[in-house]
């Protein structure tokens, strides 16, 4: 038993190493970083964090990212819920084909779509808004949300629906008051995945924004190239991008294993 637990411990140690390095570097001065190797920060400084929290181009990056990620999560879950219900409960013309087509959208490389997306959203007139990024991320998040929710809904017996209708519930009331609470773990997991994939994606987010809705990750790349190579600042900004993910993952910790299996175990 002791020997067996060594494997996950070693693996987690390996996972934490680059993260530790990023965090450690964010507390070092630029001088210390460039002058040589040190395992721990010698002169502990919060200078980099101070810059980020006082400079609007930096902290607006975070607000922008969180805004479009939240809008995307809400839209994705709202439209995916009824669709997943339809897929899990009914047969209809072209259902299997439609389901497969939805999944193929995860296979298209974002690099392929970058330029056409830019043209499309400029033509519609919402280029450089949070809504543009949120809508664009629906491309891969809606299929995923439908897939996960359908898996969770498949585990709910049909008798639940039938009993509710016999008891005189209308469909919308049944769906909101009974069905959604029953699968709330699935909704949580699906929301987590939408948040995650929208948060980590950068290529489309960067293509669709210029100033007003620029994500934090894009601010980082611009700074890296324009103001020389400020490693400490870059590391601090990177460290801060890990935090929202860590908070969100904490909330779904008990469902995470089943969630990753898309409810299909």
């Amino acid at each position: 038993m002791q020997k067996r637990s060594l494997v996950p411990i070693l693996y987690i140690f390996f996972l934490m190493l680059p993260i530790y390095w990023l965090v450690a570097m964010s507390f070092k001065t630029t001088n210390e970083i460039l002058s040589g190797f040190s395992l721990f920060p010698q002169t502990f400084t919060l200078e980099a964090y101070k810059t980020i929290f006082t400079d609007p181009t930096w902290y607006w990056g975070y607000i922008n990212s969180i805004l479009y990620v939240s809008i995307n999560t809400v839209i994705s879950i709202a439209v995916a819920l009824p669709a997943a219900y339809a897929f899990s409960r009914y047969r209809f013309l072209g259902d299997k084909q439609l389901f497969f087509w939805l999944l193929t959208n995860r296979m298209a490389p974002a690099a392929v779509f970058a330029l056409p997306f830019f043209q499309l959203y400029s033509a519609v007139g919402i280029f450089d808004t949070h809504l543009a990024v949120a809508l664009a991320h629906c491309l891969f998040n809606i299929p995923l949300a439908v897939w996960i929710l359908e898996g969770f809904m498949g585990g709910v017996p049909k008798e639940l629906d039938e009993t509710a209708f016999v008891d005189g519930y209308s469909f919308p009331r049944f769906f909101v008051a009974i069905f959604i609470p029953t699968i709330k773990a699935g909704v949580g997991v699906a929301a987590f995945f939408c948040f995650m994939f929208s948060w980590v994606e950068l290529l489309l987010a960067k293509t669709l924004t210029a100033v007003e809705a620029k994500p934090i990750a894009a601010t980082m790349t611009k700074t890296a190239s324009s103001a020389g190579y400020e490693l400490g600042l870059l590391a601090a900004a990177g460290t801060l991008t890990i935090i929202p993910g860590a908070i969100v993952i904490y909330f779904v910790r008990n469902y995470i294993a089943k969630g990753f299996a898309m409810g299909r175990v």
Partner: protein
Amino acid sequence: MKTENQKAWFFVLPVLLLVAFNALIPMMTVVNYSVQETFGDNLFFWEGLTWFEQILRSDRFHAALGRQFMFTALILIIEIPLGIAIALSMPRKGFWVPVCLVLMALPMLIPWNVVGAMWNIFALPDIGLMGYFLNHVLGINYDMTQDPVAAWVTIITMDVWHWTSLVVLLAYAGLVSIPDAYYQAAKIDGASNWSVFRFIQLPKMKNVLTIAILLRFMDSFNIYTEPFVLTGGGPGNSTTLLSIDLVKIALGQFDLGPAAAMSLIYFAITLLVSWLFYTLMTKDDLN
């Protein structure tokens, strides 16, 4: 049993409209570019299938495609068995389970360009933790900006770091769904560890492993941001994967026609291989 109900279309309509808006219109734009030539100023000339022929015959495309397949094959060969092994050795219940799962999932929640930047800092020869350790403690001459082998080792290690947890979590979900009675029966039969794995655990993990392999294939085949930030495709062209090459052609040289044709070929290959994987892995279920 599912009931037949055509009104279910109204339930899927919002999804259909939103995804179609994002998928079909840009896709048609790409198809449109792929058969035309442009010299700017929105002037387009019909080119037919010239670009497709040119791409399919070009050595540059073959080289990038070869590198892409090598990358995907390597990460699958490493991540799938490693993920299964880690999942097998994890505790099944208790305080440590959520702790392990949360820590393991952490790399997946870091924005992709931060992952690239992070590994770049980590691998710097004299001031990065890994670079310093390899060069000055182990005495290996390691510099990924100069040496293609070092660059490859770095991007493979980065992807293993980034995504093995996905396989772990999926395999783990499959494992915890096995009832204890199965293990007790195996114990009574005097089954070895290997036969427990081969005849109880592996079949139970089959569904989730299918998902794992498919997701890992699709995502690694489309990978762009992390290797682009880490190595920029270099040194030379040694780590220029398919997406990186595509963006170079489309935005670097602004050759929209060839880039669009390449996108479509790329997408077709991804679809075809995913479909092959899917049919091979679910073949037994159908019989």
